[in-house]
């Protein structure tokens, strides 16, 4: 079986004027289906860049990024958009939700873009919200929710489309430790109960402890890996 994500010797260099920043250096990495993996590293170590390269938001300067057997190189912008829409769920640190839509509408919007009918959409979203125990948030607007609640809704949205993998870039960075722990527990439960693959970044040791695999990143290089 293919790994869901495979990186072979991937590098990414940012140039701003004279300066060159090697955000990723020769990264080689495989993520298998069903994994619950953390990318750990201090600020500036290249966590966001790594996740962006995997989802095609940014293109690698060298090396190969392969998504479920499909090299991303050959895909154009629209194909990359479709890949993200249909196969990847996203949770960001903040600004996950459209402020003018309710939690329900936010989650449904992705399903709408995927071409689901109205009935399917509302059924699916209600089901997921119930599963996550956040039915009470369905009709709230983002500004009517706390940071932790917003992240829960973001997770609901990310998994509503039954993606092959959820990429979460520091999903707990804006939360206090209690909320952070709750969010990571929620993700872990979804991983073990439903087999959803998660790849998330964090610089918080308490959070990364929950992962079954931790990849340590420093200055764009993988400097270590732990499995539990």
């Amino acid at each position: 079986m293919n790994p869901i994500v495979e990186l072979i010797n991937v590098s990414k260099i940012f140039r701003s004027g004279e300066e060159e920043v090697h955000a990723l250096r020769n990264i080689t990495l495989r993520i298998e289906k069903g994994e619950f993996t953390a990318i750990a590293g201090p600020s500036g170590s290249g966590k966001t860049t790594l996740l962006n390269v995997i989802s095609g938001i940014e293109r690698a300067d060298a090396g190969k990024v392969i998504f479920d057997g499909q090299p991303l190189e050959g895909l154009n912008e629209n194909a990359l958009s479709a890949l993200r829409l249909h196969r990847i769920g996203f949770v960001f640190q903040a600004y996950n939700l459209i402020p003018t839509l309710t939690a329900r509408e936010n989650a449904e919007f992705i399903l709408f873009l995927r071409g689901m009918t109205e009935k399917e959409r509302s059924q699916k979203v209600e089901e997921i919200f119930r599963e996550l125990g956040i039915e009470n948030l369905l009709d709230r607007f983002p500004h009517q929710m706390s940071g932790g609640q917003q992240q829960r809704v973001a997770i609901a949205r990310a998994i509503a489309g039954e993606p092959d993998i959820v990429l979460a870039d520091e999903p707990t960075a804006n939360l206090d430790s209690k909320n952070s722990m709750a969010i990571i527990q929620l993700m872990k439960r979804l991983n073990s109960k439903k087999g959803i693959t998660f790849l998330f970044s964090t610089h918080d040791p308490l959070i990364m402890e929950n992962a079954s695999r931790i990849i340590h990143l420093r200055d764009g290089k993988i400097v270590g890996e732990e499995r539990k």
Partner: protein
Amino acid sequence: MIWFKLAWRNIWRNRLRSAIQFTIIAGSVFTGVVFHNLAVGNYRNMIRQGTRMGSGDVAIYNEKWFRMRRTGFTLDEKDVLPAIRKLNNVDRFFLRFYVSGYARSMEKSLPVNIVAMQLEKEVEDHPLIKGTKIRSRRDIILGEKVARRLNLGEGKRLVVMAGTADGQLTGILFRIRRVIRTGIEEVDCCTAFADLDYVRDNLGYTGKVHEVAILLENGGPDEAKKTLNQFLKPPARAYSWREAMKELASAIAYDYMGLVMFMLFLYIVISVGTVNVLFMSVMDRTREFGMLRAVGMTPGQISKMILTEGIILGTSAGITGLLIALIVNIYLSTHGIDIQALMRLAGQESVSYGGVIIEPIIRSTWEWKGSFGYTLFIILLSLIASWFPARWINSKDVAELMRR
């Protein structure tokens, strides 16, 4: 539906900005439509006046007279009347004969252009001589300046020397029925209106005419012209008022072009402002668009989202502007704008334009075609305006949008 909901909420989210944009669009449509209808109303009035004192809606001339205006190139009245009978929308028609001569008083003689016309019929309609009481076939109506120079007043006798058909010089005796002051230089300085048969008979042109001016019941000068030309034999030919009164037609065309230029200029300024407002509203949402692109929305869908907002705002504002213009137009078409005070300020008693007197009250008309034209044009402009920020946001890197 979802696109509309999203767009509508975004419009609502930034009420002040949306309100400004709405006002700009509605105001543009309002200004365009009101000015257009005022202008068209004014032109219709000018054309109405012009056709009554000039060629009618269609006119028949001897081709050569039309080009050279020499008295000899006449038409036989009885040759043209059958063609006119073929038209089924004739309101009235007038026979006219034009000749130049010298008006003489005891002291002086001055050149005058005599318009020999069916006076009794013409005084009902002709804007310059309307309401004059005609008592005898010797009556003549004289421009104010000629009368003053000849030192003659109403009721006085006047002799006009003119050439006859067989090349002799003869004098025709008139009595001045009325002296008119029109504000049109050519009329005041040197025109006289006299009885058709009296002039023709005296000059040996019995039964001859230079111009048959036909007023139609409704529109269609070009159709009438076509029909007439089917039945007229050369050298008689029919001309529409646009050909017969080129000055008036081109004065109107130029005037309207001026209005359109002004409007275009205004709209360009407004569009630049609108683009700015739209840019601000899109730039405020950079992160949101970045997130949407990241989760898989295509650039096309982003454009759709922004353009839908433009469509909603543009159409609703456009229709509002049109409706307000319609209401104001009802007032302007019944009450009109009185420009008499303006004219007095300019030291004029009447305004003439392209050789035609304009009524001192401008009434607007309502023309659907032009009014819709302006509305659609503005809506289109506002769509184009919202296309720019959409393009801008789509030209940016997703990662860059997210980082902002």
